[in-house]
């Protein structure tokens, strides 16, 4: 079945530590891939997107993501986390032939001072 998986429901890191949030998808062809962040009580803000080309994508707020076709993954990374990064992170895909998103279940990030 077509799906998007974010294996980690919660992640806690210390401020200044590195971060990696996982996202895996299962589609025959490469979908469009997105990462969004949602602060409490707010809407979703686009961090970055992958359509094609360079598999390492730079986004806003110091985030980057790497597309790995062989692993069907699109993991989000940040070298040094700030307390303001505490939020919910959603991976989303737009499968081939559609413009609607399939969302992962989200990963809640907690940052320790």
């Amino acid at each position, binding site marked *: 079945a077509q799906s998007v998986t974010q294996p980690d429901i919660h992640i806690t890191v210390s401020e200044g530590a590195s971060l990696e949030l996982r996202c895996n998808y299962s589609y025959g062809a490469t979908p469009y891939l997105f990462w969004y962040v949602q602060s409490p009580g707010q809407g*979703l*803000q686009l961090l970055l997107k992958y359509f094609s080309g360079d598999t390492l994508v730079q986004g806003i707020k110091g985030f980057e993501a790497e597309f790995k076709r062989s692993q069907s993954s699109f993991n989000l990374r940040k070298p040094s986390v700030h307390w303001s990064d505490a939020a919910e992170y959603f991976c989303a895909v737009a499968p081939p032939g*559609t413009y*609607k998103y399939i969302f992962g279940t989200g990963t809640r990030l907690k940052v320790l001072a």
Partner: protein
Amino acid sequence: DAMVIQNPRYQVTQFGKPVTLSCSQTLNHNVMYWYQQKSSQAPKLLFHYYDKDFNNEADTPDNFQSRRPNTSFCFLDIRSPGLGDAAMYLCATSRTSGTERSQPQHFGDGTRLSIL
């Protein structure tokens, strides 16, 4: 700045009393979406408009309706809200043309709906 604006940010209504949530956009995007998001869950697509064409998700209750009077505005109507309809409602927009897949969706800040 071009954006997606949702009003109100917070809405309280009574059980069974109709309520309307609004969304406006200055992005001139042709697709507008309504999502329902419950606590600690991913957004769930209710329906969307592709230009003037309404597209309902198969599992969206009949209690939920939508109107798009023009490109810029879209409304979500809940005819008889139940306690289970308490949630955050998110509006999003995107630009899509022909067979091309869309550009990213842009989200508003949402309306948090409470049912008394």
